[in-house]
């Protein structure tokens, strides 16, 4: 009884902007949200953290009308609201910036902003009105964007601003952002946070979904933690710590730091000399890149996605072709033309954990024991009589790998798509690391991987380095680069923008390099 009175009392004061009551949602057998209740005060920045698949995005997609909840109800500003589709959500003053931007690439900024919010059957008046409104919003919130630029021509940072503008143009009072900093440089992320604080000062309510705990600590007023579809904790940000949040996310104490002892760096294993790549559109993706990779070191390549790191990995791995330049392994050139053979690469001692495990690392509908042998399936140990595959050995081998890498459930007959992101990545890692390569190429080792598995994967990489192997690590997560690398190269626009030692640099400096600015040149 008393709680109802409390609620009534609050209504008279300021009703919370968002009130979710008992939301449940299942996708087939998977219970994505279990009886979730959450309250966000008006004018607050509220964070939702949780591992991949914890149900954060599902919950917010329900609020935005993208999915329909199986049960539960929603109150907006204290008023019970039924949200059946995005149209209802927009009408209730909710705007959402999705993780994958919902923009039409070959439309202008202006066209994207008015799409769905046009006034009248012809476009002229809406475009004129939007142009004026955009200018006002730009001045008010540091949201400058050229209204006539095509989306495909502007950077992701600007694209994100367009998404925010779209919401504001529709008079959103509540703004939901799903993993907003995943694709931003630290500088762009700071700018975003300034915008968000600005919006908050204007009385807007903001919900931000992220898996980066530092951002939560920086920018939010309160935070909710989700784990396996349930909301485990809601707390004021200034009364918690990253360690506590991580524990609530994973359900056990997690090591946020990587255990890494100094190791003597050995002789050079691989030399990359003047490597350039021009893509099919004639754009130079990689411009005269040179570096050396030594035994016992992890060489981290930092940079915002799309600055040539992928091309670099692909050429060295024998998937992509270089336009010029060479790669030497133990002083001997390896084929970097379009005739390069990835299988020969493996014989030379180069293993590759690709950036996109779904596309390149695994065959998703195939069973684990097949996936743990792929790429090496012609090796003698996997071959049986009469040129057939030795399935018995492949299965036994897979089971052992699954045990050593703690892949759950350890059943070789399960198809790859059955596993969680972290376990899938461990399947790829088990296959590549257990070949005991001289050089391990590894791209985005922990993308879409839960915190618990991140710890394990990082430890595997460090162990390999301690065993005197050379590791080329490409990651867009600056934290990861800083934690693992013995030496850091920063790439921008296909060029190595700078080289730093992790102990002599900081995030600010690396962020500037990632944005193409040389901090030393400035002084």
């Amino acid at each position, binding site marked *: 009884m008393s709680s109802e009175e409390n609620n009534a009392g609050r209504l008279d004061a300021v009703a919370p902007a968002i009130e979710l009551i008992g939301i449940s949602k299942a*996708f087939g057998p998977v219970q994505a949200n279990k009886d979730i209740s959450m309250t966000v005060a008006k004018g607050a920045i509220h964070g939702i953290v949780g591992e991949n698949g914890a149900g954060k995005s599902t919950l917010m997609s329900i609020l*935005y009308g*993208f*999915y329909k909840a199986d049960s539960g109800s929603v109150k907006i500003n204290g008023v019970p609201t039924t949200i059946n*589709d*995005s*149209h*209802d*959500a*927009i*009408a209730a003053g909710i705007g*959402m910036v*999705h993780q*994958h931007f*919902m*923009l*039409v*690439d*070959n*439309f202008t900024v202006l*066209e*994207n902003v*008015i*799409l*769905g*919010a*046009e006034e*009248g*059957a*012809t*476009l*002229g008046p*809406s475009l004129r009105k939007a142009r004026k409104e955009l200018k006002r919003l730009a001045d008010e919130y540091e949201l400058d964007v050229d209204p006539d630029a095509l989306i495909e021509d502007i950077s992701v940072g600007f694209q994100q601003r367009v998404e925010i503008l*779209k919401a504001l143009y529709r008079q959103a009072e509540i703004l939901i952002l799903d993993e907003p900093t995943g694709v931003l440089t630290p500088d762009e992320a700071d700018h975003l946070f300034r915008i968000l604080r600005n919006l908050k000062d204007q009385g807007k309510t903001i919900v931000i979904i992220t898996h980066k705990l530092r951002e939560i600590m920086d920018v939010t007023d309160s935070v909710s933690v989700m784990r396996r579809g349930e909301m485990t904790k809601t707390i004021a940000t200034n009364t918690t710590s990253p360690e506590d949040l991580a524990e609530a996310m994973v359900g056990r104490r997690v090591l946020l730091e990587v255990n890494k002892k100094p190791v003597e760096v050995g002789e050079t294993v691989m030399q990359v000399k003047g490597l350039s790549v021009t893509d099919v559109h004639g754009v130079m993706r990689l411009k005269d890149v040179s570096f050396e990779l030594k035994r016992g070191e992890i060489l981290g390549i930092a940079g915002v996605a799309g600055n040539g790191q992928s091309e670099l990995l692909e050429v060295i791995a024998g998937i992509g072709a270089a336009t010029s330049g060479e790669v030497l392994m133990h002083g001997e050139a390896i084929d970097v033309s379009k005739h390069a053979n990835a299988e020969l690469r493996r014989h030379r001692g180069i293993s590759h954990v690709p950036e996109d495990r779904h596309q390149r690392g695994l065959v998703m509908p195939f069973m684990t024991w097949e996936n743990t042998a792929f790429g090496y399936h012609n090796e003698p140990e996997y071959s049986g009589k009469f040129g057939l595959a030795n399935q018995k050995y492949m299965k036994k081998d897979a089971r052992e790998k699954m045990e050593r890498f703690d892949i759950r459930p350890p059943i070789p007959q399960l198809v790859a798509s059955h596993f969680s992101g972290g376990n899938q990545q461990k399947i790829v890692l088990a296959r590549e690391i257990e070949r005991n390569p001289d050089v391990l190429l590894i791209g985005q080792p922990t993308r879409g991987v839960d915190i618990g598995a991140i710890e394990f994967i990082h430890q595997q990489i460090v162990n390999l380095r301690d065993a005197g192997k050379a590791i080329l690590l490409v990651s867009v997560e600056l934290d990861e680069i800083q934690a693992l690398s013995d030496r850091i190269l920063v790439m921008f626009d296909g060029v190595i923008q700078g080289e730093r030692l992790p102990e002599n640099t900081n995030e600010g400096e690396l962020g500037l390099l990632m944005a193409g600015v040389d901090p030393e040149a400035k002084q």
Partner: protein
Amino acid sequence: MMDFLTNDLLQLSDSAVRFATPLLLACLAGLYSERAGIFDIGLEGKMLVAAFAAGAFSAIAGMPASEGGWEMGAWSVWVGLGAAIIASIMFSMIHAFASITLRGNQLISGVAINFFAAGITVLIGQYWFKMGGQTPQLREGQRFEPITLPFAESLKDVPVLGDIYYQLISGHNIIVYMGFAIVALTWWVLYRTRFGLRMRAVGENPGAVDTAGISVVKLRYSALIITGILCGLAGAYLSLGTAAAGFGKDMTAGRGFIALAALIFAKWKPITAMWATLLFGMLEAIGNKYQTLDLGFIVLPGQFMQALPYILTVVILAGFVGKAIPPKAGGEPYVKER
């Protein structure tokens, strides 16, 4: 030389316009569908049923009551046109249901529609008219007649301009003029209206449309209804507006595919589509006029001349004329990500 310009070239252009009209209408039909993100290789089939429905219903509407007709006189041709549009929309809705609602494979649905149309037209035609799948020869009132534009006769003797007006611009039937008017209309709809903006968006990124609070399904169905109407016009033109004056088995003769090639060639843009189909029309006209062509060093046989539009189709579809980037979401059923 002057003679060639005034006579041969004008004549060629005149027949190019006639040959281009069904291609143009089918091409625009495909434009609406593909811009909305639904690939449509069933243009051919829809044109074919439309041509059949037009020929059959115009014939029945114009027949005397004693032969089971409706004695509608000059209205018959319009009955035929209406039937063509309805038939074509029905086929378009089959494609819509398969590819939007059931999220099936759009290519397979298109192929099925083409085969179904090829069979059903002949089957019903034979059952109704017992003429081996053909429809009866259409008489006056049952087909579209050439329209002489105002002043065409009096301006005929003005040099060049008068010739062009009289020979090239005047003297076509109503569907030809509709076809070219629809080019302008399509441009306006596509780039200047709310519907056009949303339709282009849904072909590029249906997620953007969905999250903007607009129904992807309704938009795509609307686009496919327009596709049906335009294919209906294209098919009706073949049986009601050409010298054939009636429906004949497989009378579309691959024009739906040529229209598709023209659409790709035109990079899914309406004005460019007009020029592309006129080019195909011109090739067809040349093949028709010069049974064999003596180039001095080589004599091109008639078969080669008639194959010209098809050869160009192959060249275009093989991608020899620059990179054409189709609407990004084309061919993919829209499923909310999960």
